[in-house]
Structures are given as structure tokens and as C-alpha cells.
């Protein structure tokens, strides 16, 4: 083991120790109420919550993956950054304040205020857990391959143990510390990630004496593609299937964020809708600057390290930023290079841990607050909901570890795109309809959820990701009937269509008074918890 790997492990152990410290400190004072476990007591400040949202959202996939895509394909990687950021306008304009005013802990709370409670809770709970598990598996797979890349241990055992270790840690954070511990871990991670990114960006710009033009030209020259590197088309410019696939992904990115359960649950950690709005303003500032810096890092990696060297280290480009750090610090073997490389590796680990903790918490809330509360036998012994949520976190951890081990070879960026597509198809239509459509009914709500969820999952099963392609999950068989990898362009309209269809075909007349309550509450905050 070389010096940089030892240092990276030391730094990472330090982060784990700090986060476990936070968890014990928080759980020592816990009162065990649902308010405390799911929402951290609702007393975080907008700035704290803004950092936590940013920490929840900026995953290792964006830190390493997008910078790597830019280093390999130039402009096409930049399209990801734009989608991930513009999505926040949907959240800010249509979702954050209204959801904060109407709900208590989960997406289903907003729907259940208007609709027949049991069916919509089960539907929304199911889709929330599905989205969370998909996203969780993506992060676990990412963690496994990260260790292989950064520590040079390519053996399957090292990857498997990483997945298990990450899973165990996230279960400890969530089940012992609840939302309060999760939030502080995300804040610490956001500060570390932004700090690391700022340092690297400044070093890249210093290397080119602040001349962005020269940075871009050098990147284009060293990429081997010339000026085509600075224009779209290198990755998604192939046949029309690839182009439509990218448009589909773009739609999923921009509409999916507002349906991600772990993002929605963050709005309940602040006292008012106004504080939720200010949290989002903070997070847009942080996330936007982060992605701008990611673009500099991506082109910087192409210019400093060279596209060929990046591809040689990892075909997907995931090592672009660590290699860039090594070079900026003075090259392999130098003290500066060793330290920077170790810092980047440790920050990437920290990023994954914080993100998985947030998702685990949100999905355990969906299991306990929505599914368990609706499905348990009426006369059975009513356990405390928080106790159920703690055990649900353990269960979800086990499922995520198992799926993470199974899906070890799947592309991480694809899994993230899929989670966004399912969130946009199943969660966003029902949320927007119930906030803004007077005539929306229970059947419409249930149809909107399943009408988006089932096509999204089904189309993926029939896509080249699963079968009929040398790179797919089961290359030997061929049941591929849908040409696109990302189902968004079909399944998102289907979700909206199903909600409309369910509403116009149902005999039920929407309850005017309940809609009035939703509308008044969502815009004024009357009766909000």
C-alpha cells in the first residue's frame, strides 16, 4: 500500500469517527418522537438546511462521474450539470413551500390530506421506497467501484466488503441518530466537498494563469478531438436512438428531483415554508457553484492529465478528478500530490456515506409512516412508529447491500438516471395534480402513481440495459423490445396521462372543501405543523 492510500484511509477513518461521534452525541439527547426522528425537530435554520440539501444532492456520481464525462467527451458531460441544476427551479417554484405547508413527514402526507388515505398512502409509499432503493443501489455500487479505483484493490472481495461497510454505517447513522444526525453529517460532507472542489478549481485556474480560453483550447488539443471536444455530439451524437435517449435522460433529470423522497423530506426540517424557500435558495447557490466548478475540473483534467491517460485509468472516466489532484499537487510521489489525492478520495467516500444516509432515512420514513401505518392489522398491537422506522432502516440497509452486491457491474450513472426517471414518472405527476388540480380524485392519484411507476420499471426491463446487448445485465438472452436506456420520455407523460384518465373515469366527485383546505394551507401555511 502506497503513501497516498494510507493517508486516504486515515482521512476517511477520521470522517467516520466524526460522523459516529455526531450520531452518539445526537442520540444521547433524543426524545424518540416522530417529529424528532423524521424531521430533526423542525428547527434547522435555512442555511443549515441549504447545506444539508446540497450535501444530500451532490453525490459521488456528480463529483467523479460528471467531471469524468467532461474529461472524456467534453461538452456532452456539461449537459448533465445543466439538467441537475435547472431541476431545482421546479422544486423552488412548485414544490418546496407548498409541500412544507401541507405535509408532515412524507410525500404521502400531502396526498392523504385530500384523498382517501389508505390507497394513496400505499401507492405513494411503494413508489417512494422503489425510488429510494434504486438510488441507494446506485450509490452502493459507486462506493464499491470507488474503493477499487482509489485504493487499487480491484478484487471482488474488497468491493463487497466496501458495500457491506457502507451499508452498516448508514444503518447506524439513521437508526440511532435519525434526521438530526443525518442532517449534520450532510452539512459536514457538503462543506468538505465544496472545500475540496474550490481548492482544486483554484489550482486548475492558477495553472492556466486564470485564462479560461487557454484552458479550453489546451483541453481540446489534448483530448485528441480538436474543437469538436468543445461542442456537443461526441457521446450522444450517434444515431437517433442515442439522441432521443439523451433527451429522455434530460427530461428525467429536470423533473425527477422534485419527486425524490429524500429531497422532499428535507423541507420538513425547517419551521416554516419561508424557511423552506430560503433553504432552496441556499442550495441552488451551493449546487450551482459546485457544478460550475465541476465543469472547470472536467476540462482541467482533459487539459492537465489528458483524455488518453484518463481513459487508460478507468474507461468510464471516474478517476479523472483524483488523477487531476495528483498532477496538480506535483505529480505522483510528491508530497503535495499524495495529500491532494488522499483528500479527494476521502471526500468521495464521505460524499457517498452522507447521501446514502439521507436516502435510507427517507425510505424508512415511507415504510413506517406510510406502508406500515396503512397495512398493519387494525386490531394488532400498535408499535411505536419510530421503532418501526428504526427497524425499517435496518431492513432497507440489508436489501440495499444485497442488491448492491448483485448489481456490482451495472453503470452507476445509468442507475442514477433510472432513479430520477422513476421519481419523475411516479411521484411528480401525483404531487402536482393534488396541489393544483381541483377535480383530482383518489382513483386519479392511485393511477398516476402506478401509471408512472409500472411503465418506468417495465420499459427498463425491456430495454437494452437488461438484455439483448453485449453490455447488458443478461447478455445471453434477448427480450429487448424498447430501444432507449432511459424510459423518461415515455413514462413521464404516461404518469400524467394515467392520473388524468383515472380522474375523469371515476364516479367519485372531488371534495371541494378538502381541495380548499389543501390550497389554503399550501399557500398560507395555516394549520401547518
Amino acid at each position, binding site marked *: 500500500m502506497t503513501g497516498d492510500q494510507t493517508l486516504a484511509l486515515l482521512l476517511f477513518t477520521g470522517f467516520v469517527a466524526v460522523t459516529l461521534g455526531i450520531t452518539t452525541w445526537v442520540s444521547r439527547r433524543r426524545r424518540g418522537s*416522530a417529529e424528532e426522528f423524521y424531521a430533526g425537530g423542525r428547527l434547522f435554520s435555512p442555511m443549515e438546511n441549504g447545506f444539508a440539501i446540497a450535501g444530500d444532492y451532490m453525490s459521488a456520481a456528480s463529483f467523479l462521474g460528471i467531471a469524468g464525462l467532461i474529461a472524456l467527451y467534453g461538452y456532452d458531460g456539461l449537459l448533465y450539470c445543466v439538467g441537475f441544476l435547472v431541476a431545482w427551479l421546479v422544486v423552488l417554484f412548485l414544490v418546496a413551500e407548498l409541500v412544507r405547508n401541507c*405535509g408532515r413527514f412524507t410525500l404521502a402526507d400531502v396526498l392523504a390530506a385530500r384523498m382517501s388515505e389508505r390507497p394513496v398512502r400505499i401507492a405513494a409509499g411503494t413508489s417512494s421506497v422503489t425510488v429510494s432503493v434504486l438510488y441507494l443501489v446506485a450509490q452502493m455500487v459507486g462506493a464499491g467501484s470507488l474503493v477499487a479505483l482509489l485504493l487499487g484493490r480491484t478484487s471482488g472481495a474488497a468491493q463487497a466488503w466496501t458495500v457491506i461497510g457502507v451499508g452498516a454505517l448508514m444503518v447506524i447513522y439513521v437508526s440511532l441518530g435519525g434526521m438530526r444526525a443525518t442532517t449534520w453529517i450532510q452539512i459536514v460532507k457538503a462543506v468538505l466537498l465544496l472545500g475540496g472542489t474550490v481548492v482544486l478549481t483554484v489550482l486548475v485556474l492558477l495553472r492556466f494563469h486564470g485564462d479560461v480560453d487557454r484552458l*479550453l483550447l489546451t483541453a*481540446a488539443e489534448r483530448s485528441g478531438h480538436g474543437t469538436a471536444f468543445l461542442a456537443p455530439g461526441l457521446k450522444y451524437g450517434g444515431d437517433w436512438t442515442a439522441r432521443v435517449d439523451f433527451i429522455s435522460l434530460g427530461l428525467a433529470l*429536470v423533473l425527477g428531483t422534485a419527486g425524490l423522497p429524500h429531497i422532499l423530506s428535507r423541507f420538513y426540517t425547517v419551521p416554516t415554508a419561508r424557511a423552506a424557500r430560503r433553504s432552496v435558495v441556499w442550495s441552488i447557490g451551493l449546487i450551482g457553484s459546485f457544478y460550475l466548478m465541476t465543469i472547470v475540473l472536467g476540462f482541467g483534467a482533459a487539459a492537465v492529465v489528458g483524455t488518453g491517460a484518463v481513459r487508460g485509468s478507468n474507461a468510464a472516466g471516474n478517476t479523472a478528478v483524483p488523477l487531476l489532484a495528483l498532477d496538480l499537487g506535483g505529480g505522483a510521489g510528491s508530497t503535495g500530490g499524495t495529500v491532494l489525492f488522499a483528500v479527494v478520495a476521502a471526500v468521495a467516500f464521505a460524499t457517498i456515506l452522507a447521501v446514502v444516509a439521507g436516502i435510507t432515512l427517507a425510505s424508512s420514513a415511507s415504510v*413506517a409512516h406510510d406502508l406500515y401505518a396503512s397495512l398493519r392489522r387494525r386490531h394488532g398491537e400498535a408499535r411505536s412508529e419510530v421503532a418501526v422506522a428504526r427497524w425499517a432502516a435496518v431492513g432497507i440497509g440489508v436489501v440495499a447491500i444485497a442488491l448492491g452486491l448483485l448489481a456490482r457491474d451495472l453503470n452507476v450513472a445509468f442507475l442514477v438516471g433510472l432513479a430520477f426517471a422513476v421519481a419523475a414518472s411516479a411521484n411528480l405527476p401525483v404531487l402536482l395534480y393534488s396541489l393544483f388540480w381541483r377535480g383530482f380524485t383518489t382513483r386519479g392519484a392511485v393511477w398516476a402513481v402506478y401509471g408512472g411507476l409500472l411503465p418506468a420499471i417495465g420499459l427498463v426491463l425491456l430495454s437494452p440495459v437488461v438484455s439483448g446487448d453485449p453490455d447488458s445485465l443478461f447478455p445471453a438472452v434477448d427480450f429487448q423490445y424498447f430501444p432507449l436506456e432511459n424510459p423518461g420520455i415515455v413514462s413521464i407523460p404516461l404518469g400524467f396521462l394515467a392520473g388524468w384518465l383515472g380522474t375523469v373515469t371515476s364516479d367519485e366527485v372531488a371534495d371541494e372543501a378538502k381541495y380548499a*383546505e389543501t390550497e389554503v394551507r399550501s399557500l*398560507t401555511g395555516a394549520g401547518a405543523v
Partner: protein
Amino acid sequence: MQSSNGPRGAGDGPERPAGNQEDRGTPSRDVTFEDPWHDAPASGWGELHDTGTPAPAVPPARGGPGAAAAGARDVYVEVQRSAAFQEVRGRYRRFVVPGTVGFLVWYVGYVVTATTAPGFMARPVAGAVNVGMVAGLGQFLTTFLLTWAYARHARLRRDRAALELRWDTQELARGARGGAQ
């Protein structure tokens, strides 16, 4: 609001009508609430440019002394029909609907152009910067600008009226519950 009510049993739904436990005993809304909406001005960058003037006040939602007798269920319908609420909702929608349509069209147009017309995006503008770079950075810029504009609009045009409506509605609901008992 943020008051914790101790452990709750499973399945405790959210729809307690206007359920608020705090300040049950205060008969008038002239008392000073511990109101997080009135905390110090925001620290977000969207809030730094406080040059505008607050929107003109909207009329109160309370219909009169007889209104409190309405059932708790009807309180929200009554508030929804009040001129004050219609005004707040109108201000919200007049900003959000064009804004959302605008940025979605701009974003989808950008993605479709980038995938279908890479030649146009490659056209040079200045030095190494081409149309695609300008458009991509333009997306960042419009996102920041719209965020700032929304936060400012909400703060100056909606917050005050929404807060007044909130207390009025909660008081009406409390009165309705009291009348029913």
C-alpha cells in the same frame, strides 16, 4: 408549528383541521407570536437586494363576527373564496406559471438543440467559446436569476399577506371548533 407533541402512535394522519396546539389561550391576534416568519432578514444571496417596496396590503379574510359560527370544514372554503386569498393565489400563479413555462421551454429547447443541431452549437463566438458554451452558461445564469426573482417576489408580494391569512384562518378554525362544542 414546530411544537412537538410527544410520541405519536402509528397511523396518526396529518389531517387534523388547522390543528395547532400553540397559543390556544390567546383570544386576540394582536399578541406577539414567536413567529419564525419575522426573523432577521434572510442570509441567502437572493435576499440581499432588498430595494423594492412591500406589496400593498390585501383586505382581511374575516367575513365578520358571524363567520366564526361556520363549521371548521367550511372555514377553508370561506377563506378560499375571500378576496384576500384570491389575491395571494393570483400573485403566486402570475409569477410561477409563466416562469415555469419559460424555463422549461428554454431548457428543453437547449437539450434538443444540443442533441439535434451540434453544428449550430459548435459555431464560435469568441476565442474557444462557442454558442453551446454560451447557452450552457446561460442556463446557469437564468437559473440563478429566476431563483433571485422568485425569492424577491415571494418576500415582497406574498409573505405578509400569506402570514395574515394564516393567522386569520387558524383563528376562524379555532372559533368554528369552539362554536361546534
